[in-house]
């Protein structure tokens, strides 16, 4: 029996349950986290080639769910990340201040909505269905961002609406042109014509907004930085990834023959610019959460920097794995970092980096979680971030793409600069409170640090599971189907 639908249905069920249980709905996460982790693990271990035609309706009409490598990894990482964030939100509830009660209650249905939307988006191959899932995720994301700063959330909302509509316009053109919006079918019938190019351009532009690739990143830092820690973690770990995954479907699966190398290098160039720009901005921040948010801008850059590397590789599997694993590692590490940063800011004297003094003594576990997450984000071994960077850097050097290789290398160094700045601030003595830092006892019980520590630990452990992860990521890679390797057929 095929249970792929459960990965979407179960979180939706939890959303309903959370709405019915109202205030006590938060305890549902105790059930949801293990159930979803189990389902996701089951998904990851399915035999290759598992698909589900929803309702058993055949393709040009129906919707296909498919467990390919990307979906498996993203769903699994998503389950672990969202589960951990949810459990963390039990001990560190998001609605601490203004809007408290409403925030504390509505956080949960929104979390499940995002969970269902993300899983649905990772699994489906239908571009219109992806539009609906994109809206599920965006809606939840904007609402979560609004828990911090309404102004930033409104800005995010408007730009995200435009992005969605651009995407939908592309879908509309494809429906009219091909009578199907299924990626696997499009791959067989794709031809180079004005409508296809226009559709691809529009969809890409819309999705780049959602994925916050430089220079469409403007909405991200204020929205991610202002939200409560669990919300920020969800935004950075999950929300930006869906746009990226849809772009993978479009560029490598549906239209590989149409996306010329010049276009790929535009994406790669934007990615490289994002790495540099995001890092420099992160270095310039003097508050902690904007720093972490700008780091997301930089990290998203790597995902797109990988596009030309995958397309240009002789044996694309390793670059492909590098790209997907980077996404996964970033999910784990960035979620851990936002959760840790939230705890650190609650304990610190203020929200500036300079206010973090004394925290290494006061909350060693949390600072450790921050540090481990930083190791992965910097791409230092052993960590998932390193594995990804290793694969990408190898691919870049192999192809003689020294510009990309240089950005990969320099980006890691810049990340080290800004992340270690925050870390070393934690080692400084307590700011302005005299010499007796030792007298300041641990301010967080161990429980609060568990989730960030677990996530950061997973990001590190990923570094040792490289082979297995690379194998999973290679399940049903686009070029495994013969239609894709064929040179472009004249329209």
């Amino acid at each position: 029996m095929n249970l792929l639908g459960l990965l979407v249905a179960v979180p939706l069920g939890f959303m309903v349950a959370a709405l019915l249980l109202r205030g006590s709905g938060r305890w549902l996460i105790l059930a949801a986290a293990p159930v979803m982790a189990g389902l996701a693990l089951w998904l990851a271990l399915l035999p290759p080639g598992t698909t589900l035609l929803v309702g058993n309706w055949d393709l040009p009409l129906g919707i296909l769910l498919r467990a390919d490598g990307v979906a498996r990894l993203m769903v699994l990482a998503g389950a672990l990340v969202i589960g951990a964030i949810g459990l963390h939100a039990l001990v560190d509830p998001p609605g601490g201040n203004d809007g408290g009660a409403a925030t504390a209650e509505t956080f949960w249905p929104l979390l499940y909505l995002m969970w269902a939307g993300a899983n649905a988006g990772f699994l489906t191959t239908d571009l219109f269905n992806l539009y609906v899932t994109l809206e599920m995720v965006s809606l939840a994301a904007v609402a979560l961002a609004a828990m911090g700063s309404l102004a930033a959330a409104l800005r995010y909302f408007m730009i995200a609406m435009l992005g969605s509509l651009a995407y939908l316009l592309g879908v509309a053109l494809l429906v009219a042109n091909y009578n199907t919006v299924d990626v696997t079918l499009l791959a067989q019938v794709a031809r180079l014509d004005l409508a296809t190019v226009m559709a691809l351009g529009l969809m890409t532009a819309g999705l780049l907004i959602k994925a916050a690739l430089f220079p469409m990143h403007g909405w991200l830092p204020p929205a991610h930085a202002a939200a409560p820690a669990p919300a920020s973690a969800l935004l950075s770990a999950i929300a930006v990834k869906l746009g990226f995954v849809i772009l993978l479907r479009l560029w490598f699966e549906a239209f590989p023959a149409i996306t010329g190398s010049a276009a790929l290098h535009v994406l790669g160039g934007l990615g490289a610019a994002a790495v540099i720009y995001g890092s420099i901005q992160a270095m310039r921040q003097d508050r902690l959460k904007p720093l972490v948010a700008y780091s997301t801008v930089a990290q998203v850059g790597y995902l797109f920097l990988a596009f030309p590397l995958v397309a240009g590789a002789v044996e694309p599997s390793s670059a492909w794995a590098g790209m997907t694993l980077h996404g996964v590692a970033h999910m784990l590490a960035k979620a851990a970092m936002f959760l840790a940063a939230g705890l650190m800011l609650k304990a610190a004297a203020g929200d500036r980096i300079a206010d973090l003094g004394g925290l290494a003594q006061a909350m060693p576990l949390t600072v450790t979680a921050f540090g481990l997450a930083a190791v992965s984000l910097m791409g230092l071994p052993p960590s998932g971030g390193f594995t990804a960077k290793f694969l990408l850097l190898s691919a870049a050097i192999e192809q003689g793409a020294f510009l990309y290789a240089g950005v990969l290398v320099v980006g890691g160094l810049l990340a080290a600069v800004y992340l270690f700045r925050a870390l070393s601030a934690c080692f400084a003595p307590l700011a302005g409170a005299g010499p007796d830092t030792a007298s300041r006892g641990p301010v967080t019980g161990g429980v609060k640090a568990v989730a960030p520590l677990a996530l950061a630990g997973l990001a590190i452990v990923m570094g040792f599971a490289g082979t297995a992860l690379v194998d999973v990521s290679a399940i049903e890679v686009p070029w495994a189907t013969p239609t894709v390797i064929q040179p472009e057929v004249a329209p």
Partner: protein
Amino acid sequence: MSGAFDLILCLMILGTAGIALFVRDALAAIAFFIAFGNLMGLAWLSLGAVNVALAEIAIGAGVTGILLILARARLLALGDPVHSGDTPTWLWLGAFAACTSFSVLLAATVLSITPESGLDRVVAPLMPGLGIENRVTGVLLAFRAYDTLLESFVLLGALVAVWSLAPARAWPGRPAEPRMADGQMHQVAGASGRVLLPVALVMAAYLVWAGSDLPGGAFQAGTVLAGGLMLAAMGGAIGLPRSDRPLLRAALVLGPLVFLAIGLGGIAAGGFLIYPKGLAKALIVTIEYTLFLSIGVTLALLVAGPPVADSPVPDAGGNG
């Protein structure tokens, strides 16, 4: 349908849209937007898409229009005149150039595609298996029921998102009363609301019923119900409920939940969202009725907005 009619209609659509977008006064803009929505409905009719026409007029023009009017009224009450500031010359010049070329490009693209009826051929032979006639309903609730299931949760999620905006002391309170600026209008609305609510309910139920075979369906019907509820609430005929009332919550989740349950039940029949043979119509109708109820309540509350701190209306009964 003559080509001239289509051409004139399209010009009117563009004209109303232009005014709605660029007129200075916000109220006029919204009024023209509603007119624009209704013309869009006509366009859909002319295209032969009655289902869409209903949805466009009810939701696109109706609900969206009310939403915008209410938002403007509330903004005015808060001292925001809803004037858009002056746009720098370089910006509108640049935007104008960009959008003109975009529209030319897009129009060329659109013209390069030959309209054809490809999927109807696929849909038609499948319809007898469902036992219903309306092909759009067939697509919405069978062939692409998965989309619709997710969409019903988007609607529910939007309400949760609106609720999440409730200020500190307002939770779990009532939404602000949708005020009528004019006292007389208030009374008219109240009276008509009292009368119209049952009518709306009947009309909506009919729309759902018809939706199986004729144009109509859960979303359109839900909108009619929402309209009735809103009108009744505006006139004070019914009070808006507290957001934590169990009955309200149940009404909100009923449709999506039943839909989800039927989808999961399908696993027993072979897979997610599979309708067992012979049961398809019954299940679809069940989904439609429950969904219509939930959509109606959800839309009404979406229009009402988040709970506010001190709602003056006493608990005079709820809806749902």
